[in-house]
């Protein structure tokens, strides 16, 4: 009895939250469900900010046609699998919601994919994990899997720079970073680069003195660092302080493409190579306009995840509009339209976003280099 009363009060509390998003016939209801708190907040919060800006702009521009608009709400998956499961389950039970943009990453994204496929409810997770795609036809990924991004930096290592002996530092306790690192290792090994050492740090670590001394005193002609931006900058600082030969090229992946990287690393990260989908400030009309309006709205410059969120929302909006125009404004209609998106203008990569037949996203990458405290496109 007591149990029931408690559960009922929980239900009504939830109903109040959802009532905020009123439904009209010409409203396209999408929920942006990202990690606003918890371990992946540095991704999810930024993606959500970018996506919200995009949705507002599209509504303002009348993108969906006369009188129509996208109605969106932002929810927090809290980087917590259980809460994600319950939120998506509940959203799936609300027939007005067409799709969810989210959840963010890791096991949370995977959990979201499970429910989505079980309940036939389209989700576009932020992650790049192919397992989400393989989980079923209703779960999509927004970012490019390692098999697409890592060749950019691996080719640059082996061919453009012609390096031969690489030391690798990765994160041991985060699956996304491990996956990127493994991909890089196999690509450069194939290209004939020798891996001289492999070390894993924990995300919470900050003491790299022993590791830095070990690498600074060993023999290699490049160091690849596959960690988050702030941690990577810190590792590079400690490597340089431990006396690493300043001419040794240091390479990283797209996690480094964040203002934090330069801010934390200062002079130590000068000349570091990395890949990024986003060139800060933008590198064509669309992306420059985005950079400007984002900074005007938020008061700080957009980073890679803001740009990703903004781009992802463009794709979602096109899919929703295509479904509506095809007269099939159902979850299944949106799902089909999403998987068929081709050459959507975005602000990241090579500026167009497409899903292939396997629903793998492609928008390209750029090899960047830190020069004079800013990201610039690396010399070919």
């Amino acid at each position: 009895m007591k149990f029931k009363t408690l559960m009922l009060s929980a239900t009504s509390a939830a109903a109040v939250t959802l009532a905020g998003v009123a439904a009209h016939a010409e409203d396209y209801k999408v929920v942006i469900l990202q990690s606003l708190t918890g371990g992946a907040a540095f991704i999810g919060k930024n993606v959500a900010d970018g996506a919200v800006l995009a949705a507002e702009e599209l509504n303002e521009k009348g993108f969906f046609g006369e009188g129509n608009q996208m109605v969106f709400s932002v929810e927090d998956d809290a980087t917590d699998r259980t809460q994600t499961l319950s939120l998506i389950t509940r959203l799936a039970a609300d027939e007005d919601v067409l799709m969810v943009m989210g959840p963010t990453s890791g096991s949370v994204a995977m959990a979201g994919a499970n429910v989505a496929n079980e309940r036939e409810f389209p989700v576009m997770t932020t992650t790049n994990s192919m397992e989400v795609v393989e989980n079923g036809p209703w779960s999509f990924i927004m970012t490019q899997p390692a098999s697409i991004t890592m060749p950019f930096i691996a080719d640059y290592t082996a061919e453009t720079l012609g390096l031969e002996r690489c030391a690798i530092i990765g994160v041991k306790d985060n699956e996304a970073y491990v996956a990127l690192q493994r991909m890089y290792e196999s690509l450069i090994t194939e290209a004939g680069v020798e891996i001289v050492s492999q070390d894993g740090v924990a995300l919470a670590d900050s003491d790299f003195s022993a590791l830095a001394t070990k690498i600074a005193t060993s023999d290699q002609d490049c160091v690849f660092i596959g960690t988050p931006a702030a941690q990577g900058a810190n590792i590079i600082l400690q490597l340089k302080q431990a006396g690493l030969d300043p001419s040794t090229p240091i390479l990283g992946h797209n996690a480094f493409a964040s203002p934090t990287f330069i801010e934390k690393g200062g002079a130590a990260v000068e000349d570091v190579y990395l890949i990024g989908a986003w060139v800060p400030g933008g590198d064509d009309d669309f992306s420059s306009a985005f950079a400007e309006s984002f900074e005007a709205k938020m008061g700080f410059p957009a980073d890679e995840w803001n740009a990703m969120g903004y781009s992802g929302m463009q794709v979602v909006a096109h899919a929703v509009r295509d479904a509506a125009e095809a007269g099939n404004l159902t979850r299944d209609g949106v799902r089909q339209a999403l998987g068929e998106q081709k050459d959507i203008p975005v602000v990241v990569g090579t500026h167009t976003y497409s899903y292939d037949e396997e629903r793998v996203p492609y928008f390209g990458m750029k090899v960047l280099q830190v020069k004079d405290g800013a990201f610039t496109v690396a010399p070919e």
Partner: protein
Amino acid sequence: MLSQQILNGLVSGSVYALFSLGFTLIFGVQKLLNFAHGATFMAGAFIAYYCTISGLPFLLAIGFSMLATGLIAILIDLIAFRTLRNRGNAEFPALVSSIGVDLILVSIAQQVSKTQVLNFPFGTFPIKFYDLFGLRISLLQIVILAVVAVLVAALIFYLRKTTFGRQVRAVATNERAAALLGVNAQSVYLQTFFIAGALAGLAGVLIGLLFNSIQFLMGEPYMLRAFVVVVIGGLGSVQGAIVASLLLGVTQSLAVAYLPSGLTDAIIFGLLFLVLLVRPNGLFGDINAVAGGTRQ
């Protein structure tokens, strides 16, 4: 490379010592595990960081941060420990309530920092390197070693030679007998918490500076390390904690240098297990207890 790694380990170990001393002091006096010690350490780094970026001179920021973490520790005692202690048999309840305090402090720091990794602005402390018999040592490392050595000596002097230190040890050994001799145990508790908090706060600042990184979760690995330190050194033993901290720092450095670095944790926690098996009271648990061994 070997001697360089030992040096790295000694520097890390000396900061572990600073961190663990307060933890072991509280255990020595109260026989309670203060799980919020890691969060106090984190708070020290945070407070000094925000003081520094708001323009306070760095030394003043350190002083302010130590004062603040000392007071935080006193609050922890008042909020989480006092009622439980008065009720008796507080060992388990106190662990739980200090975990509660830990969650609160970490959550606040998470909100304040928006989960970002912070670092002291460049130039907060001059980066200079010296070549010492082929060893590369930074000014900061020298300062840290010196500060820790001075503080540890001061703490030992304080516990051994001053009236207050004797009161601390009296309460640690036998609280009731101490009360009958006119020792005010409550004030001893508050003072040991203050000292423990201030030392943890300083350790936080030093770690934040040395490794260039301040974040809301930074306390957790240090808390786990402190468990290793106090078990190997003997819970409540000040000398034991110092020796064990340095040993741990060096072991860890060498493990990273010569073994697969992914195994470091398994190695140090395995070591802890081994010590518990062979010597349940720690390597130095019985002989060198300063803050008191087992309560009579």
